[in-house]
C-alpha cells in the first residue's frame, strides 16, 4: 500500500483548481495557491525566517512558512513557470475577472499588470507553435489571449464559448505545441496558434484538461466524467456521481507511463491507467480535493505527487518503489483473480439456470406464472421516431414510439442518452390504469447534435412483478427538430448563405437523409423545413452547377449545417457568401452598446476618483474635529462620510452592472466572429476570423460586416 511521505496542514483554505508549484527563487519549490479574501499564499518550508514583509507580500502570523500575497480581487486562476528570459526564478501569474498579474515572488515586484476585458478563467504558461518566447495564455469569455514577459499581447483569438480549461501539448505530433481549449459549450478545441485544427464534442462543460504524453491528454467534465483522448479519439472515460476537481498526469507506479490522477469533490484521489482507466491507486481526504500538482518538495531529487484539499491539507506521494511491482493497493492479486473468475463462473451458472428453467416452462402459462412475467418468446419491440409539430397542449417534439406486437404491456421505459435530458436518463412510467403495449415518449433535444438513445423497456404482463428488459439503441440524427410540413403562409427567411461544392447532388441527398429525420427519404436536394425550435423556415437549394444556398434566419444553424455537410463530403476548404440582415443589425446595435458602456465606464471611474478624494478630506476634517473636541462637527462629518460611502456603494453597483453588461456584449461580439467563421471551412474560416479581429481592433465596423458577408480576401 502506497502511503503519503509527507502530510501538511496549512490552515488556509485553498480555492479549487488554483494550486501550483513554482521555484520562485530558482531553487526551492514552493506551493502557491489562491485562498479566501482575494489572497494568494505561498508555502515555502525551505528558507525559514529569512524574509521580510514588503509591498504585496506579508508574512502570515499563524505560520512562519507561509507568506500571503494581496491581490485584492477574487482570484480566478493561477500558475507559475518561467516566463522571462533573464529572471532568477519562476514567475507567478495570477488572473482575476479583470486583470492579469505577473509577479516576481523572489524580488517582490510586479513584472506586469494588464487589464483583460474578457477575464481570465483559465491560464497556462508555455510555448505555443512558432512563437519564440513563452506565453502566459489566458482564456476568458469566448476569447484567448497570450502575453509575453513584457506584458505584450502576442496571441489573440476567439472560441465558441467561455473558456474553462487550457492545456498546451503537441497534439499534431509536429514537434510544436498546440493549445487545447475546453469551454462551456461542451467542446474541446485544438488551436495551432490561431488556427482551429480540431474540435471534439463532449456533453458537458469541460472543466479540466491535462497533457499525458505524446498526443494523449486527459479531460474532466462538470458532470463527473473523466477520460483520456488520443488526438481526436477517446480512449476511455468513466463517470462518477462526484465531480472531478483537478486532474494531473503522474507516473505513480513507476512503470514509465504516466497515470491520470484525479482529485474528486468528495475528497477521493485516484490514479487510473492511461490505457484502460483501471484504478491502480486511491486515497481519501476528509474534504474536497482542491488541486493536484507535482514537484520535488523535499529537495531530494525525487519528484512527488502533491495533492491538496480545500481545507488546506497537503499530501505528497512518491512514485512506488520497485518492490511494490505496480501493486499499490492493499489487495492480493491472486485473491482478486480467483474472486473474479469465481464471480464469472457464478454468473454463467446463473445464466445457464435461466435457460434451463426457461426450457422447462410450458407454453400456456398458468396464473401463478404471471408474476414471473412470462411473455411469448417471439415478442419483439418496435420503435419509431417521428417529428411532431406543436399542438395546443404540447410543445413541438420528436416522438419515440415503442410498442409490443402482442398483448404484453410495457411497464416502464428508461432512455439513457447524453446531452438531451436534464440528467443522463429519462423515464416513462405509466400509472397502473394506463398500462398498454405502446408507449410514446416525447423528446426535445436542446441542441442539434446526433444522439444515441439507449432504450430499456420493461415488458411483461399487467400483474407481473418481474419483467423482461428489452435493450435497443436508436440513433437520433443531428438535425431532427426540423419538420417537412411547411405552412405556406410563413414568411420566407431573410438570411442566406451560398457556397459552391464540386459534388453530385445525390451525395447531398444522402447527407440530408442521414442527418434529418425524414419519414420516407427524399431524392432531391431542394427541400424546405420548419424549425420546430424557433418556428422559422429552413430552405435548402442546390443548383446544377453545384451552388448550394441555405436560407434561414438562424446563423448558428447555417454554421452547423455547413460544418456537418463539409465533414460528410470531406471538404477541406470552403468559401461562402452570407447575409443575415437581422442578426447583423443586432450585432451593429451591440457594437454601439459596447462603445456606450465603455464611455460610461470611464465616466464612472472618474467620479469614483473624485469621491475618494472627498473621502480623504472628510476623514481628515472629522479626525481634526475629534482631536479638537468639537464633537458636533465630527458627528456631522462622519454622517456625511456615511452618506458618501453609501453613494460609493451604489455607484459600485452601477459600475458592476455596467461591467457585466459590457462583458455580455463583448461575449456576443466574440461569438459573432466565431459564427461568421463557422459559415466557412478550413483556410477561409481562419482568414475570416483573423480579418474580423483586425477589423474590431481598428474599430472598422463596416469592414467587419463586409468580411462577415463576403469572407476575407485571401492574402
Amino acid at each position, binding site marked *: 500500500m502506497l502511503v503519503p511521505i509527507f502530510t501538511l496542514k496549512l490552515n*488556509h483554505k485553498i480555492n479549487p483548481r488554483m494550486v501550483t508549484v513554482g521555484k520562485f527563487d530558482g531553487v526551492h519549490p514552493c506551493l502557491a495557491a489562491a485562498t*479566501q*479574501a482575494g489572497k494568494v499564499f505561498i508555502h515555502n518550508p525551505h528558507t525559514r525566517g529569512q524574509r521580510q514583509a514588503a509591498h504585496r507580500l506579508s508574512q*502570515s*502570523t*499563524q505560520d512562519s512558512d507561509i507568506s*500571503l500575497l494581496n491581490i485584492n480581487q477574487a482570484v480566478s486562476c493561477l500558475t507559475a513557470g518561467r516566463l522571462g528570459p533573464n529572471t532568477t526564478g519562476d514567475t507567478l501569474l495570477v488572473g482575476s475577472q479583470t486583470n492579469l498579474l505577473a509577479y516576481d515572488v523572489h524580488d517582490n515586484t510586479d513584472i506586469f499588470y494588464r487589464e483583460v476585458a474578457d477575464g481570465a478563467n483559465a491560464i497556462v504558461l508555455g510555448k505555443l507553435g512558432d512563437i519564440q518566447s513563452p506565453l502566459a495564455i489566458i482564456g476568458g469569455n469566448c476569447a484567448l489571449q497570450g502575453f509575453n514577459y513584457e506584458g505584450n499581447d502576442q496571441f489573440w483569438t476567439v472560441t465558441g464559448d467561455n473558456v474553462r480549461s487550457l492545456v498546451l501539448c503537441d497534439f499534431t505530433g509536429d514537434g510544436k505545441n498546440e493549445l487545447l481549449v475546453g469551454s462551456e459549450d461542451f467542446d474541446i478545441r485544438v488551436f495551432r496558434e490561431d488556427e482551429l485544427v480540431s474540435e471534439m464534442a463532449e456533453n458537458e462543460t469541460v472543466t479540466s484538461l491535462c497533457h499525458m504524453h505524446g498526443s494523449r491528454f486527459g479531460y474532466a467534465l462538470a458532470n463527473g466524467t473523466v477520460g483520456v483522448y488520443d488526438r481526436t479519439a477517446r480512449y476511455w472515460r468513466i463517470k*462518477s*456521481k462526484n465531480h472531478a476537481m483537478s486532474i494531473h498526469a503522474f507516473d505513480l507506479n513507476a512503470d514509465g507511463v504516466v497515470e491520470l490522477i484525479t482529485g474528486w469533490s468528495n475528497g477521493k484521489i485516484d490514479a487510473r491507467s492511461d490505457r484502460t482507466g483501471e484504478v491502480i491507486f486511491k486515497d481519501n481526504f476528509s474534504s474536497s480535493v482542491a488541486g493536484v500538482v507535482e514537484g520535488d518538495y523535499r529537495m531530494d531529487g525525487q519528484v512527488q505527487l502533491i495533492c491538496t484539499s480545500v481545507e488546506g491539507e497537503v499530501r505528497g506521494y512518491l512514485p512506488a518503489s520497485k518492490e511494490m*511491482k505496480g501493486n499499490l493497493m492493499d489487495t492480493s492479486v*491472486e*485473491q482478486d483473480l*480467483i*474472486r473474479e*473468475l*469465481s464471480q464469472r*463462473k*457464478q*454468473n*454463467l*451458472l*446463473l*445464466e*445457464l439456470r*435461466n*435457460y*434451463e*428453467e*426457461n426450457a422447462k*416452462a*410450458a*407454453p400456456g*402459462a398458468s396464473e401463478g406464472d404471471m408474476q414471473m*412475467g*412470462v411473455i*411469448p*418468446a*417471439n*415478442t419483439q419491440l418496435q420503435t419509431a421516431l417521428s417529428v411532431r409539430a406543436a399542438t395546443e397542449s404540447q410543445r413541438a417534439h420528436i416522438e419515440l414510439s415503442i410498442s409490443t406486437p402482442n398483448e404484453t404491456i410495457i*411497464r*416502464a421505459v*428508461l432512455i*439513457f442518452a447524453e446531452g438531451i*435530458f*436534464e*440528467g*443522463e*436518463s429519462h*423515464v416513462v*412510467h405509466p*400509472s397502473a390504469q394506463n398500462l398498454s403495449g405502446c408507449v410514446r415518449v416525447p423528446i426535445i433535444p436542446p441542441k442539434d447534435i446526433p444522439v444515441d438513445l439507449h432504450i*430499456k423497456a*420493461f415488458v411483461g404482463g399487467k400483474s407481473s*412483478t*418481474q*419483467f*423482461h*428488459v*428489452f*435493450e435497443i439503441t436508436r440513433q437520433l440524427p443531428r438535425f431532427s427538430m426540423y419538420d417537412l410540413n411547411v405552412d405556406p403562409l410563413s414568411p420566407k427567411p431573410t438570411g442566406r448563405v451560398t457556397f459552391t461544392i464540386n459534388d453530385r447532388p445525390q451525395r447531398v441527398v444522402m447527407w440530408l437523409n442521414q442527418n434529418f429525420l425524414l419519414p420516407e427519404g427524399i431524392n432531391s436536394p431542394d427541400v424546405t423545413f420548419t424549425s420546430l425550435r424557433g418556428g422559422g423556415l429552413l430552405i435548402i437549394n442546390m443548383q446544377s452547377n453545384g451552388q448550394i444556398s441555405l436560407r434561414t434566419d438562424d446563423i448558428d444553424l447555417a454554421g452547423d449545417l455547413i460544418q456537418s455537410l463539409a465533414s460528410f463530403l470531406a471538404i477541406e476548404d470552403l468559401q461562402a457568401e452570407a447575409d443575415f440582415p437581422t442578426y447583423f443589425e443586432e450585432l451593429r446595435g451591440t457594437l454601439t452598446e459596447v462603445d456606450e458602456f465603455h464611455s460610461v465606464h470611464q465616466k464612472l471611474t472618474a467620479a469614483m476618483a473624485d469621491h475618494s478624494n472627498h473621502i480623504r478630506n472628510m476623514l481628515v476634517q472629522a479626525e481634526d474635529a475629534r482631536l479638537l473636541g468639537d464633537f458636533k462637527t465630527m458627528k456631522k462629518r462622519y454622517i456625511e462620510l456615511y452618506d458618501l460611502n453609501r453613494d460609493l456603494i451604489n455607484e459600485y453597483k452601477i459600475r458592476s452592472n455596467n461591467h457585466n453588461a459590457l462583458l455580455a456584449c463583448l461575449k456576443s461580439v466574440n461569438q459573432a466572429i466565431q459564427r461568421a467563421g463557422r459559415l466557412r471551412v478550413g483556410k477561409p474560416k481562419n482568414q475570416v476570423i483573423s480579418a474580423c479581429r483586425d477589423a474590431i481592433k481598428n474599430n472598422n465596423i463596416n469592414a467587419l460586416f463586409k468580411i462577415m458577408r463576403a469572407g476575407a480576401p485571401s492574402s
Partner: protein
Amino acid sequence: MDLNLNHVDYLQVGVTSQKTMKLLPAIGRKATQKVAVADHDGVVTCFGMKKGEAVPVFKSLPGQKISRLELGGALGTPQEKIFVCSGSEVRGFTKKGKQFLSFEANLTESINAMHVSGADLFVCASYIYNHYCDCKDQDYYLSGDKINDIVCLPVETVGRTVPILACQDRVLRVLQGSELLYDVEVPGPPSVLELHNKDGGKDGEEVLYGTADGKLGLIKIERSAPVTRWEIDNKKKKGGVLCMDTFDILGDGVKDILVGRDDGTVEVYGLDSSGEHTLRFEHVLSESVTSIQGGCVGKETFDEIITTTYTGWVSGLTTEPQQMEAGPGEEVKMSRETQTKVAALRAELEQLQVKVLQGREKYQQSSQSSTAVSAVPVFSINDKFTLCQDDASYSLTLEVQTAIDNLLLQSDVPIDLLDVDKNSAVVSFSECDSEPNGNFLLATYRCQANTTRLELKVRSIEGQYGTLQAYITPRLQPKTCQVRQYQIKPLSLHQRTHTIDQDRPMNTLSLVGQFSFAEIHSWVVFCLPEVPEKTPAGENITFFFQNTFLGTQLEATYCKGEAHFKSDNISTISILKDVLTKEATKRKINLNISYEVNEDSVNHTLRMIHPKLEYQLLLAKKVQLIDALKELQVHEGNADFLIPEYRSILEESTHLLEEYKKQPAHLERLYGMITDLFIDKFKFKGQNVKTKVSLLLEILDNYDLNSLIDFFNEA
C-alpha cells in the same frame, strides 16, 4: 487496532439466509475444522480446506430454500449433527452426509428460526413457536409479532427448558412450556440471539442479542426477571446485526464477540482493561454478512473468523500472515496452489461458456416460434426498508446475487431522495409528469461494475402516503427486472414503543361504528408502521408509538366496533381522522367520529419543538458566520480580537459543519410541521387559516417561542 486479519476466499455457494453456516467441532487437538453451509438452492455443503483448496466432504441434492442451519447431537457429546430447515421440514445429516432425519412439522408457514438441543427441537414460523421432543409435539405458543430468532438456555446448566424468542416488536419473549414467562424490552427489533460464550456464561443464563437497527447487548435471563448487563449503541449508523458468535480471536483468554452486519461490516468486540466492550477490529465486505463463526479452517494453529455473505461467499479473516513471495525478477509470483486453482477455474469457465452459448442459441431460436414462451426464473433480492430513528428518514437497502445494472425508483407520493456517500452509482432524476401518471419521483441509478448492494435514503412527509417502487435490473442474460414495492404510510415517521408519558396533554379521536376487530386492525396497519399484519389475539389491543422526528406520542386502543387514538400532537390526530374516514367510506362503513381537542396540547407540542428549532436556528446562524470569520482570521493573522462567542465558533467550526451536514433540510422540516400544526389546530375548530400561513412563516423567520405561542393563540 492491534488485531491484523487477512481476508481469504474459500468457496462460493448459492444465496444464503441468516445463520446458515456452522463449523463442525474439531477432531483432536488443533486440527482444522470442517464448514457446513446451506443455501437457497437447498444444498447443504460440508467442506474442509486442504492446502488452500476447498475439499468437499459431502453435498446434498438441491431442493427448497434452506432458512437455517444448526448443529446438534446427544447432550454431552460433540455437537456434530447438522440440522437444516426448509419450508416446514427439518432434516438432519451426520457429519459424513448421511441423512438420518426428515421431519415434517406440518406448519402452514415455513420455518424461519430453529434451535436444536439433544432430542428437543424448537422451530418458529412467522408467529408460531413449536417445541418437539423426539419429534413429538410438546409446546405451542402464538407470538404477538413476527419471530426473528430463537435460542434456548442450555439445559445442562440451567436444568430446565427456557426458550427465548426474538420478536419484531422490540421484545424478547421468555417462555415456560406453552406460556409466556415474561418479556424483555430491547432497544430495537431484535434480529439475532446467541448464547454468551456459546454456553450462556457461568450460570448459563446470559444471552446476546443484536437488533435490526445495529445495536447489540447482553441480557441475563434469570428465573424471575431479566437483568441487562450491557448495551452497545449504533452511533456510526452501521447496518443491522445479522449474526453473532463468541470466540477468542484476540488470544487473550477471554471470548470476544464477533458481529456480522447487513452492510457488510465484520466487527470484533473485546473486553478492555476496565471491563468495557470496545471495538478491536473492523473489516468491510461488499455484501451483507449472513453468518459468522470463529474457529480454525484454513490452516492449523491459525485462528480465524469465518463469514458467509448473502451471495454465498464463504471466506475467512485469518490470523495467518499472507506470505510474501519476494523472489528475484519482476514478475509477481503466484504460489503453485493458486496456479492450479486458477487453471482449474479457467477450464471450468470454458466448459460453462460453451454450455451457455448453446443455451443462448436455443433461447434465440425459440423466439422464432410462435407458441414458445420466455419465462425467466425469479432472481432473489434481499431488501430492507426501515425507519432510521436518528434522522427520521427511511433507508432502503437492496442486494442481489449478481451485479446490479440499474435501478429505477418510482414513487406516487412526494418524497426526497437523499444521497448516500457509500454509493458509487450515478443517480439521475427524470422529469415527472404527475398528471396523468401520478409520478412524483422518477430516478435511475446506473451502477458501477460489481455493485451487488445499494443503499438509499428516502425522506417522507407525514400525511402523504402511497407506494415507492424499485425496479431492479441485474447484469444477467436474458435481462429481466423485478419490481419491489414499499408502502409509505400516512404516519410514516412513527415508531413502536412500549410505554408513553401519560401526563402530557392529549387530544383524543374516537371512532364508533359497525366494523370488525380485523377491519380496524387493518386500518391501523395501513396508517402506522411496525404493526403486525396479523390481527392480534384477544378482544382488544393497545399500541404505543412515538414520532421519531418530534418525539410526540400516540396511543391506539381498539376493539370490535370502537377505537380510541390519543396523541399530544394535533397533526397526528388530524392525519388519522382523514385517513380513517377515507378508508371507512371506501368500505361503506358508517363511522361515528368524535374528537376532543386539548388546547394545551398545541402549546405543549410547540414547547417540545422549541429546543430543536432553537438549536437548528443557532446552528444555521453559526455556520453562516464561519466563512466570514475565517476570512477575518486570515486577514488579521489571528483571532484574538474577536469576541469570545465568535472565537468559539471558529474553534468548533469543523464540528458545527459536520452537524449541519448531517441534518439537511432539518429546519425546513420543522417549519413544515409547525405549519401543519397551525392549520390542523384550526381545522378542528372549522376554520381555514391557510391565508395566515405567510404570517406564520414571518414569525418563524424571527423566531421567538412566546411570540409563536401568542400567534397560535390569537389567530
